[in-house]
């Protein structure tokens, strides 16, 4: 088992299933879970932006 490939794949699959359930169902628990995931997404994007900027300067600096 290749953990570096399988763990991100599993996370992506689970988040994908929750996103689909959120779109097609009205279950409160699913909506609340997906809201938390979307908030985490925003936080991760902010960190990724910073990481990208640092990487840009490391590669081209």
């Amino acid at each position, binding site marked *: 088992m290749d953990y570096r490939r399988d763990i991100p794949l599993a996370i992506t699959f689970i988040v994908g299933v929750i996103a*689909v359930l959120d*779109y*097609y*169902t*009205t*279950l409160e628990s699913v909506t609340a879970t997906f809201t938390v995931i979307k908030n985490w997404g925003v936080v991760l994007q902010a960190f990724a932006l910073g990481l990208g900027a640092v990487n840009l300067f490391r590669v081209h600096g």
Partner: protein
Amino acid sequence: MAILTPNRLVPLAAFILAWVATYMAIQMGKQGKIKIRRIPGLDAIEEIVGRSVEMGRPVFDIIGMGVFTDIYATQTIAGLSILSYVSTLCARLGAELYAPQASVDVLPVAAEIVRESYRLEGKEDEINIEEQLPYLSGTQFAWASGIIGMAARLRPAGNIMIGPFWAESMMFAESFDRVGAMQIGGTARLYQIPFFAALCDYVLIGEEMFAAGAYVSGDPQQVGSIAAQDWYKLAALALGILGALLATAGVTVIGDLLIK
């Protein structure tokens, strides 16, 4: 309280059916039950690379100036899958490959694809990414001028243009034709297909280029996915024709069903 979101019942059913159809098609692809018909334009890629080796002149693979974030992204990805195939052939047969780039987000992906192809053939030292995959410009006619200049200087034996193309399509096809290059053109942008048809030896029309990755790799998963997409299109077409006929007769059952 209804569990399902109102007005999304039919999309959910379509989604599940598409999922099942794709799974079935992939299984059938693995069993060898699905074949993609012969596409002469893709078969000719090997001929172009072979011609280039015999003549001692380079091959150009131009994937267009598309990016990954617009509606033409699928065409760019189709172009990249062809680039992977062309670079593998060039590495294997010893042809010199040039693939000028116009998008800063596509360039690193294209470079990595080409580098990987040469690495897998054990010829990593035979490719100079900076020289052979140069970034020319993100501005349409500056990029076009750069490629026309390269064509005039390097006089390639072959030119493969598969991806999204705009007004530069005619300039490229004309310039490479003048230097005697054998050409394959392919795009899903309908306005540009006539220009390629006028000057290229082979043309991939519209969706043929999307099947290219599956065709050249022969990967049963990709072949199965392509087959499943055709099934969806046939189902949508049948539903459209049936709905139009029924609506003409005053029966709105299909229309009523689709908004549920």
